[in-house]
């Protein structure tokens, strides 16, 4: 079955030094772009795609893939170091990653994030190569009712990131879901809650708000509670100790779970890394032996979030290679770039140009190994970031945030959203409201609402559609199980710590900026 010439053709592509150079360049550039808040992988690929039209396919496409992978990984770097997720997909990594940095373990966090990313990516790429077609034929059967239930399952993750106070967490999530309703409703054409403001027609932009809530509020928190200072003076080896192999090895079930989850979610067209990281994080916390450490610098939490969001990258290519359907906005741009090279991704590509497709898979695998090399090299320097005095570091973070928030839409209104997010985030952190539920609500709200309403158009208004279809029935049972599990888990510790019912969780570290 396997044609030897195809293998040869594919490997020849890798052997070209230009392909290799383009890949490395794209990867390095992607890490940098991902690390800058506001510059997302989607934007980078979209902006640079037209330039690849002038290049040969064996240079242009690896270049774009390098950017894509680099940018998804790069987003976790500022999330860990300065609590500023570079991309929405890294928001979950900021929780435990930054908590580790505060404990002086930034090197460990960066290394763990890199290793989890690379391992998850590698496994998901193998899935793409081996079982793309069967997986895609399952994924394509997912209709709006199944998506609505998946979103609902994802929304239950709010409970796992709410910290000690469930009411505050729910209120934050509710506000996020409410803010998500602002803007032009694509299904009905109504302009909802725009208060007559033209810019609000587009809704409240997620990335500026998120940068404001995480990064600007972090700057304000640092001003309110400056660190005591003994830490910065005494440390000889900066960034703390490195990750030990044993520490990584015990995480293998977590990483495996997150990877399978991310791979599956990525193969569903429309669900991206932003959502996968939270579900993976919530799942890991549910299965963990020490869920109380989540949000306080848990290695498990960081590994789960990073494996979850990076596993999405190769598997988002599954709908693209099998059906020519974009799995997310980035693959939509990649399809455009492939078309520009005269290659239509989809069923015809497998038949017409299998050599190129094989080469593409090889490029994906090599990108991973390169990511490991680049990442290790970058960490040597990045761990020094904690050495930069705050008076220099945070003004630069502010500048990056302002530029990044503007860059998302070239919109000055987004700057107002950024500052509003900063103020709201600061207020919430001072008063013990968790920020993560609000971001999850904002992320999932629009998808859930439209999937729910689409389902009702399918069924002509009958709710029975959620249990009359086999896949949705399975998902509905899963949802019930998840809720039952959360309820059981939530009730259990109550009895154990009855003495201190109003502060069940340990003393809140939020005031110190540890919680997100």
């Amino acid at each position: 079955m396997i044609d030897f010439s195809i293998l040869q053709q594919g490997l020849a592509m890798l052997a070209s030094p230009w392909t290799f150079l383009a890949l490395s360049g794209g990867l390095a550039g992607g890490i940098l772009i991902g690390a800058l808040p506001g510059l997302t992988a989607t934007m980078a690929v979209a902006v640079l795609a037209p330039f690849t039209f002038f290049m040969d396919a064996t240079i242009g496409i690896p270049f774009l893939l390098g950017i894509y992978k680099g940018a998804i990984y790069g987003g976790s770097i500022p999330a860990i170091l300065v609590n500023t997720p570079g991309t929405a997909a890294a928001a979950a990594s900021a929780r435990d990653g930054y908590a580790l940095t505060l404990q002086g373990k930034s090197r460990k966090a960066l290394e763990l994030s890199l290793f989890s990313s690379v391992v998850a990516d590698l496994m998901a790429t193998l899935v793409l190569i081996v079982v793309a077609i069967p997986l895609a034929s399952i994924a394509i059967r997912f209709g709006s009712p199944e998506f609505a239930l998946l979103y609902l399952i994802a929304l239950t993750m709010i409970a796992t990131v709410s910290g000690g106070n469930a009411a505050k967490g729910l209120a934050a999530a509710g506000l996020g879901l409410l803010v998500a309703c602002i803007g032009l409703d694509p299904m009905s054409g109504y302009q909802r809650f725009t208060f007559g403001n033209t810019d609000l027609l587009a809704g409240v932009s997620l990335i500026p708000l998120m940068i404001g809530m995480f990064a600007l509020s972090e700057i304000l928190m640092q001003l309110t509670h400056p660190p005591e200072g003994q830490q910065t003076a005494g440390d000889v080896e900066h960034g703390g100790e490195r990750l030990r192999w044993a520490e990584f090895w015990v995480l293998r079930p977590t990483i495996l779970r997150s990877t399978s989850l991310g791979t599956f979610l990525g193969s569903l067209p429309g669900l991206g890394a932003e959502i996968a990281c939270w579900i993976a994080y919530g799942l890991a916390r549910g299965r963990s032996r020490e869920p109380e450490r989540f949000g306080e610098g848990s290695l498990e939490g960081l590994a789960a979030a990073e494996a979850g969001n990076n596993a999405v990258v190769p598997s988002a290519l599954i709908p693209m290679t099998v059906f020519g359907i974009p799995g997310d906005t980035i693959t939509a741009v990649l399809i455009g770039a492939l078309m520009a090279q005269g290659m239509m991704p989809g069923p015809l590509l497998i038949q017409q140009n299998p050599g190129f497709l094989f080469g593409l898979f090889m490029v994906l695998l090599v990108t991973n190994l390169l990511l490991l090399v680049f990442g290790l090299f970058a960490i040597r320097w990045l761990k020094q970031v904690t050495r930069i005095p705050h008076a220099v570091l945070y003004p630069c973070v502010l500048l990056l945030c302002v530029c990044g928030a503007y860059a998302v839409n070239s919109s000055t209104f987004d700057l107002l959203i950024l500052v509003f997010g900063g103020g709201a985030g600061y207020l919430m952190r001072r008063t013990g409201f968790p920020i993560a539920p609000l971001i999850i609500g904002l992320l999932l709200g629009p998808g859930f609402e439209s999937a729910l309403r689409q389902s009702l158009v399918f069924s002509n208004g009958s709710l029975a559609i959620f249990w009359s279809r086999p896949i949705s029935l399975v998902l509905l049972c899963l949802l019930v199980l998840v809720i039952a599990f959360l309820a059981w888990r939530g009730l259990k510790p109550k009895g154990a710590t009855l003495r201190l019912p109003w502060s069940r969780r340990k003393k809140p570290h939020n005031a110190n900026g540890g919680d997100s």
Partner: protein
Amino acid sequence: MNHKTLPLTLLSASLAAASLTAASTVLAQESHLPDEPIRFVTPYPAGGSHSLHAGIITAVGEEFLGRSLISVIRGGGGGAVAAAEVAGSTPDGTMLLFGDPTINSLRPQVEDLPYEMDDFVPVARINYSPAIFVTTPEQPFQTIGELVEHAGDHPDEVIYSSDNRNGFTYTVFEMLKGAADVEMRGVELGGGGPAVTQLLGGNTMAYAGAPSVVGEHLEAGTLTGLCVTDIERQEAYPDIPTCQEEGYDVVFQFWRGVMAPAGTPDEVVAELSDGFERMTQNEGFLRLISQIGSDIQFQGHEAFAESLAAEQAALREAYLGE
């Protein structure tokens, strides 16, 4: 540091090579444009065919317009946010909108948007694509006539993939429903990708989309073409009849064109129009456009103004019955 500059060097090298091969063009001796870059606003998020076209235009546009072009991608509100921003900008040719029929003809007439149809003057039409009505081979109807018949026998039971309210797919289905006097239910899925997915997955029964979206599936046989919303058959799909041939008067050409804010001086509009015309005649540009599965049906500002007025009137009639 050296890693960062690498992609840039690569890019500039390939760009330079590309512009060298392009024919050099004489610029207008006297320009009426202000001496600053032109911001070319794409009203949809990055990733769609609009932003791909805009990427090519802004990458090669400078030598034809005499000003550098900056691609501004400003999505949101189905294009309304960018349109309102351009409509309110200084009308001197420094900010242009990459418009289309839903933004410039349809929605300002049927929705309450923060801009009016007359806030824009047409500069140049770059190209257009029709919609192709498609279905899967499993459906009980395989021609547009059978679809209409099926919908007539089973009112409100044919479910089709739609995009957004008053979007491209939404509009052509409304036109078909009006022309054939049948009832069908559309599910607004927000874009071509999910719409085709749901159709292929058997959740919906029909769809209508641009050749760039459905073309490959037509070739692979996973989708069947029913009819084309153009006045003549497509060169690439000679077997698919036009809707008019089949007896349903559904014609909708989804154009992509450059619009300037109203009040832009006539000589500036004319100069821009000439510049875009020279660009669309350039071989290098044509090659790039053909690479993204598109082609050029250029109209200068005068011809474009006429066809636009006709389209706006036709839509007013279809939607508002005036």
